[in-house]
């Protein structure tokens, strides 16, 4: 099953409304189960847009996006939202957490949006909170410390680990990480990546890691440069991004 395809994109064209030049034009992007993909591209190369398309938030102009065998063009937007909640986890650059929820509540949150995630958790744990605490501990966070602190008072490294626990919660098939380490100091960057890899490995989660920092690429199974696979006219994108 090692070659099971998790994400398959073909002939994708995406352009913003009222823009003639496409931002994305990708012939083929295929990711197998358990792969750790490093998606590299300078800012403005359409990374965020690609993530929104994979997440089912943006609709491509044409092309086929298949996630876990589901063809996105066959799903309504609210089905795609549910699909995203059921099968994906996200980690962003920073400010990943809802400021008015505790760390544990933040980690539990995905299960409140997804019965599938919640069911998966309860197969192994007695309660969602227990699993959240276990994950946080696994990510070297002291649940005791966290419970006394507002999540906005945590260090960026701690926040990113809480976000990781949230992304892993309920064992989604895919985790999409958008520059999760760019706000971290280089010394904790390594350990953060290590923890993230550990979690993904344990649950056979496919990781799509987006960054402009090419130096991290060596740690991944595969490095994909967005500039190489994206045939869209760069000048057209530049126009949109910088004007």
């Amino acid at each position, binding site marked *: 099953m090692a070659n099971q395809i998790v994400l398959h994109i073909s002939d994708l064209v995406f352009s913003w409304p009222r823009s003639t030049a496409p931002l994305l034009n990708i012939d083929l992007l295929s990711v197998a189960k358990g792969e750790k993909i490093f998606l590299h591209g300078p800012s403005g190369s359409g990374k*965020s847009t690609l*993530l*929104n398309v994979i*997440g089912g*938030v*943006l609709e491509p102009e044409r092309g086929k996006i298949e996630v876990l065998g589901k063809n996105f063009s066959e799903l309504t*937007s*609210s089905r795609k*939202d*549910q699909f*995203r*909640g*059921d099968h994906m986890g*996200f980690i*962003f650059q920073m*400010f*990943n*957490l*809802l*400021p*008015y*929820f505790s760390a544990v509540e933040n980690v539990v*949150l*995905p299960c*409140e*949006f*997804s019965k599938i995630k919640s069911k998966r958790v309860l197969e192994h744990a007695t309660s969602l909170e227990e699993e959240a605490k276990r994950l946080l501990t696994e990510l070297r966070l002291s649940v005791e410390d966290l419970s006394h602190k507002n999540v906005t008072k945590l260090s960026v490294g701690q926040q990113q680990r809480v976000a990781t626990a*949230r992304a892993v919660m309920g064992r989604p098939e895919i985790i999409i990480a*958008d520059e999760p380490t760019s706000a971290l100091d280089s010394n904790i960057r390594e350990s953060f990546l290590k923890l993230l890899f550990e979690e993904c490995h344990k649950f056979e989660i496919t990781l799509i890691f987006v960054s402009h920092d090419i130096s991290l690429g060596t740690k991944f199974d595969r490095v994909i440069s967005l500039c190489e696979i994206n045939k869209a006219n760069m000048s057209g994108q530049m126009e949109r991004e910088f004007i």
Partner: protein
Amino acid sequence: MVIFKVAKKSLLNRKATTLLTIFSLALSVSLLLGIERIRSGAKASFESTVSGVDLIVGARSGPINLLLYSIFRIGDATNNISYKSYEEFKDHSVVEWTIPISLGDSHKGFRVVGTNRDYFKFYKYSNDESLRFFQGNEFIKLFDVVVGSEVAKSLGYQVGDKITLSHGTGNISFQEHEDKPFTVVGILDRTMTPVDSSLHVSLEAITAIHVDWQNGAPPAPGEEITAEKVLQMELKPADVTAFLVRLKSRIAVFNVQREINSYDEESLLAILPGVTLRDLWNTIGIAEKSLMIVSILVFIVSLVGMVISLLATLNERRREMAILRSIGAKKRFIFSVLVIETCILTITGVLFGIASLYVGLLIFRPVLESQMGLTLGLFEPTENDYRYIVLVLVGSLLASIVPALRAYKHSLADGLVVKN
């Protein structure tokens, strides 16, 4: 439900704004309901001024004028009616009882009502309540006077006190009937009607104090008739100002009214008190309506305040919405969060508004009752109260569309990634 949790926690995260918004909503709701309460209270006590009377009869003038001087003791009659006419209708076959009223004198700013003992027997106010005596009893002798509770209270009168009446109805009168002093023989219970501010004497007493007057002028020196002499005289009233009529059967009311209005001997006017009360209320109702409009405007202002405070935070909350979206929240979830937040704010505001209204009523009700004669119900919400509460809720639900739509649009533009 996770959406309520998100809405609740998000509001609590912005405690200061949330509390201020709730405070302003509560204030406007209690203002709205408070004014409604005062309005209905005022209307109720207004309408309960007189009860059980089928017709009020006076000299021909305007119906409202007649009602004002005969019942509210405001203003003066343009003319009196002859005692003969009064007697004619008093003895009418369909008339059950009448109460004559003779006005024109006063005592320290309070009106003096000349009447007979039927007044204490038949006069009814509120829900068919009769007059009761707090102290003493009806007038029997010629120079006896029965005072209303407000008169007794503000002038400190007790049964047995001697007082003199003044000619005319002004507060300061230069023509005192000081030669013929009266004795307070009774004090009436509080009625919350103009009866409280009246002094009651017999029709004969009114005749007696004016017996030596000529054409509305005090007697020339040497022509005075002393109180002792008056007691020997046979006093027959020449006229009355108005009289209240109760019919044996209400069915006859329009016939009798027509009969009185077309009376040949004298120009008379008969009015139906209920109808005229309503007309009068509608006339003075403009003040009430403008109060209502102002309080509705205050409510709209606080709604706008709430919308502004929600809109102001939306920019900071773009990331929060993107996170929720990434976790699997649908677009309509983002919209609904804002609607639910508005609902929580409004419902809390309404509840606090109602609570503070009741607290305010508990505190100020006795003051309003004793100072202004305004009896307000405490825990008796009117139909209008419910109407206003529904209006408030619907209004805020509509207002919530503004921030909700904006959050929705933000969320569409941002997707999962918020640009800094």
